[in-house]
């Protein structure tokens, strides 16, 4: 065999090869770590938005939606964000494997750790209202986002499917009220026989109605749900509701 050592050294001299500068390795390693941190942070932001959207879904209404419950429940799952969380976790795993010693850790451990950090940090971001702010920002500034991920109140803007949401404008009688939907239209709402209004219902209460549309801006309700009024009242009276409900971001959008 040729003396490879000798011929290689000659080639190194001839081609004037030099060791790459030490800082280039430091920068490369730092960039890989920065990438990992960024991906986990984006994962956390996605978790906070997903939590926000989940918290904004009126899950309890499903039991009153005969024949539509499955579809309605599915609408409450933030699929876009869950898919993004899965994607970011996968990319962060690949990125971590490229850190200097990342390959020494079991993939399961890296993935679970990445998910736990994103979930923990995402929970904190959700709690301080970052999820809500980002969701609002995206839905107002990014048109494609509204198509991909309709507003959390969208399932209640379908009177033809028997679902209507809005804010009480006026309680006329114990069987009639006026409601303003998010588009600003005023609806006449009549309760079906045997259906009563929730106790203490008052103007400005956000409500979800289940029933059927009887015509232009005329809705017959067989079930009326006050949506998060308790929270609103608690905040108005200066008291803090328990647990996660204490955060004001529950009130918007």
């Amino acid at each position, binding site marked *: 065999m040729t003396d*490879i050592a000798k011929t290689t050294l000659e080639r190194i001299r001839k081609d004037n090869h030099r060791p*790459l500068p030490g800082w280039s390795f430091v920068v490369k390693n730092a960039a890989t770590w920065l990438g990992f941190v960024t991906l986990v942070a984006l994962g956390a932001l996605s978790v906070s938005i997903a939590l926000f959207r989940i918290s904004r879904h009126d899950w309890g209404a499903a039991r009153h939606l005969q024949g539509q419950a499955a579809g309605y429940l599915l609408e409450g799952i933030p699929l876009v964000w869950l898919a993004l969380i899965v994607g970011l976790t996968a990319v962060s795993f690949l990125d971590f494997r490229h850190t200097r010693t990342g390959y020494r850790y079991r993939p399961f451990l890296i993935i679970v750790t990445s998910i736990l950090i994103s979930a923990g940090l995402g929970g904190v971001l959700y709690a301080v209202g970052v999820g809500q702010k980002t969701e609002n920002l995206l839905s107002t500034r990014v048109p494609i986002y509204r198509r991909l991920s309709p507003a959390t109140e969208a399932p209640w803007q379908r009177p033809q499917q028997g679902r209507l949401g809005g804010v009480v404008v006026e309680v006329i009688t114990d069987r009639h009220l006026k409601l303003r939907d998010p588009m600003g239209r005023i609806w006449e709402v009549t309760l079906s026989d045997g259906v009563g209004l929730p106790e203490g219902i008052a103007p400005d209460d956000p409500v979800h109605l289940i029933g059927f549309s009887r015509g232009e801006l005329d809705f017959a309700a067989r079930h009326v749900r006050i949506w998060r009024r308790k929270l609103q009242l608690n905040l108005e009276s200066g008291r803090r509701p328990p647990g996660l409900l204490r955060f004001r971001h529950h009130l918007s959008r």
Partner: protein
Amino acid sequence: MSAEEQNAGEMREKTDEELVRLTLEDRDCFLYLMRRYQAPLARYIVRLAGLTREDTEDVLQESFIKIYRNLKGFDTSLKFSSWAYRITHNETMDHLRRRRSRPRIIETADQDELLRRIAADTDLETAADRDLMIRILRQSLARLSPKYREVLVLRYLEERDYREISDILRLPEGTVATRLNRAKIRLRGEYVKSSEKGGDL
């Protein structure tokens, strides 16, 4: 004894890490590091991919240049040998990819040694005829995918421990252990299949 021979003698006593440090000060010291590794790395390339002598020399030269250019990035938490093997491994695999060819198993004395060691560690029912067993094993090994063959080569021929294999292949040690077990199971399966058709070997 000439000054050059004396110098070479001194260099032989230095550790890899000391030679790396010296190379960074004086390029010519890299010669001693290459001399130390040229035979083992060339053998490894042949064991891994069964390249021709010319190709092996090409791959080895490219590997040494890569090692030299990346010397400042050498992670001292690794053994230098693991790092050098890793670069050579990657260079060999890149060479195969460029050529779009699969690793070949070539018949060498140390391949037989590999096969004997694997046979001993794989609880194979060895054929009475030792040559026949080696032939069957060689065919079985050739049918294994590269990812299984490389762990067998590193473990049984290069005699690397799990940590070193982990550093060379950039895999967790647990994965190395699993892959090695699977490689042995697959090899045993291939061996049994080939043994049953033993007549046409």
